[in-house]
């Protein structure tokens, strides 16, 4: 009886078990990763809930209050009320050249920047994965054609390819996503093909074929699950690259067009006022920098823990976890 309670006591509940998992331990044990992830969650939160968390309206122009420095208060005219009333407002990050609140515009800009970053990766990842599967699984002519196309696309610098696509199709949000699909699919394609080539020689694929599985089933059930980790690790490092590229394109005038707004476009619009109002350039620039940095640091941690050769550096199972017999 006494023994039984002891055994029961020693079995951890779900929460404790999760907490003791090496991956979770490694995540919370690494300050840099933890800070990066928290920052990213914060950015995603303000992007999703921009209308709720923003102090003001992103389009609301207060021409008398333009270029207010960060942390200043101003008497704004509330035109939504009838008759218009004066109302005192606080601008944490100052206002831009049209008297719009920088903080609010930053939150709304995060929507576009993050969407472009993540959607771009998704679209190029799916296309790359599909073509890589075709090339690796069917080999032969299909493989040759796809891999030659990879060679061609790989030999053009990203920005050049992006400019060409936007030059021909015209600048817009959709076309920026197309840019990433056209300019980055090769990355995923090459990795997918490599994985597929090594997998299709393995016994479990032969076995699946021997019992009469269709190609579709073999690819979907046996190959694709093995692709998730390698592709996810590339994707994590591609998101910051996409965000930086989008901001560069928008800055050059080939990206997001007003009235839509992204961080790069905010910078472009503020550029000519840089001498009189530094914050219109510093604020969005810092946002791009910090977001890209957080994604990069988080991505490299993800790559490290998913790489069996590097994993031991990060996953040092706690003594408790070992005793509890956690497998990883």
């Amino acid at each position, binding site marked *: 009886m006494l023994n039984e309670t002891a055994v029961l006591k020693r079995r951890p509940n779900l929460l404790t078990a999760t907490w003791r998992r090496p991956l979770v331990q490694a995540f919370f044990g690494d300050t840099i990763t933890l800070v990066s992830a928290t920052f990213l969650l914060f950015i995603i939160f303000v992007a999703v809930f921009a209308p709720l968390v923003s102090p003001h309206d992103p389009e609301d122009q207060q021409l008398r209050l333009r270029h207010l420095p960060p942390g200043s208060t101003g008497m704004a005219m509330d035109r939504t009320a009838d008759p218009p009333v004066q109302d005192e407002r606080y601008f944490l990050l100052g206002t831009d050249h049209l008297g719009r609140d920088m903080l609010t515009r930053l939150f709304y800009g995060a929507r576009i920047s993050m969407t472009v970053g993540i959607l771009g990766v998704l679209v190029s990842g799916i296309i790359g994965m599909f073509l890589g599967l075709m090339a690796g699984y069917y080999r032969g002519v299909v493989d040759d054609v796809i891999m030659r196309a990879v060679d061609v696309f790989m030999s053009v610098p990203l920005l050049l390819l992006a400019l060409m696509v936007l030059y*021909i199709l015209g600048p817009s949000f959709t076309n920026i996503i197309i840019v990433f699909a056209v300019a980055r699919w090769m990355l995923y394609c090459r990795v997918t093909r490599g994985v597929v080539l090594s997998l299709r020689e393995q016994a479990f694929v032969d076995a699946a074929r021997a019992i009469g599985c269709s190609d579709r089933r073999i690819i979907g059930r046996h190959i694709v699950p093995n692709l998730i980790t390698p592709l996810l690790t590339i994707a994590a490092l591609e998101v910051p690259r996409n965000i930086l590229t989008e901001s560069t394109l928008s800055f050059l005038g*080939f990206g997001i067009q007003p009235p839509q707004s992204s961080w790069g476009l905010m910078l472009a619009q503020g550029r000519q006022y840089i001498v009189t109002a530094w914050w219109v350039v510093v604020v969005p*620039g810092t946002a791009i*920098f910090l977001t890209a940095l957080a994604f990069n640091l988080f991505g490299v941690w993800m790559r490290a823990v998913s790489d069996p050769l590097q994993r031991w*550096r990060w996953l040092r199972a706690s003594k408790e976890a070992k005793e509890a017999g956690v497998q990883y």
Partner: protein
Amino acid sequence: MRNYMIRRVGHSFFIILGLMALLFLAINVLGDPVTLLVGEDASQEAIQAVREKFGLNRPLYVRFGEFYWDLFHGDFGTSLRHQIDARGMVWNRLPNTAALAGVAFLFGSLGLPLGMLAARRPKGFIDRAVNILSFAAISIPQFWLGLMLILIVSVQLNLLPTSGFQGLGPGGWKFMILPALTLVPVILGRNAQITRATMIEEMGKQYVATARAKGLAENAVLYSHVLKNAAISIVTLMGDELAGLMNGATVTEIIFGWPGLGKLLIDAISSRDLPVVTASVFVVALLVMTINLTVDLFYTWLDPRVSYK
């Protein structure tokens, strides 16, 4: 070896041809060459005139043949805006971009010793510092860094000119510092990361344990064994960086008014100068090809095990 080289050059040649075919199809099938030349709100007469002048009324395959014929003769047509030979314009700009990229690449090479230093003791203090700083360096938007440099160095401190170009001779160095500084962090950071990662990976291999076991000093192990083997990957990736410099160079040239290939391309796109766009794309592709080819041939020297069959 000779056969390999011939095949390798043939391969590059094929890639350029493929790329130009893609460009032609993109312009003529996906896009509308008339719109690209005169803009969206041109009059009916203007559109007719352009169609006549550039022979756009002829069938696609005829124009495709002509496009390649001109390509083989190195003829890209005349710049619509400046009325001079497009090829000449591009070649004139090439040295400016090459100089800027070269200087930036040289300073960016300092990332190698940084990476080595970090790799000496993985997860140590220096390693962590180099790791974070290199990630910070590659996360900076280059155009923003350029603007910040102008704001601080030129406007506030009044040390260097904000932008401009006065030749590549001794008189022009002042104009080159800020653009080069804008390009350096990304290369520096990537080089440090590449070196660090490759060195750490190599250090886990058996021959390192052997070298240590036979009593070699740590420095000898690192620099004569590990570095030599790591060099192969490092050179490949640095070649990619050099080719990727074109990305940064374009933005930097725009911000600092540096008359290089990137600025030429952006200006040509803005002024709908199709011949110049085509010529720039061709030259950049040729440049990247040459870099990749050089890196590949560098292998034989670095790694005699690589067989070229």
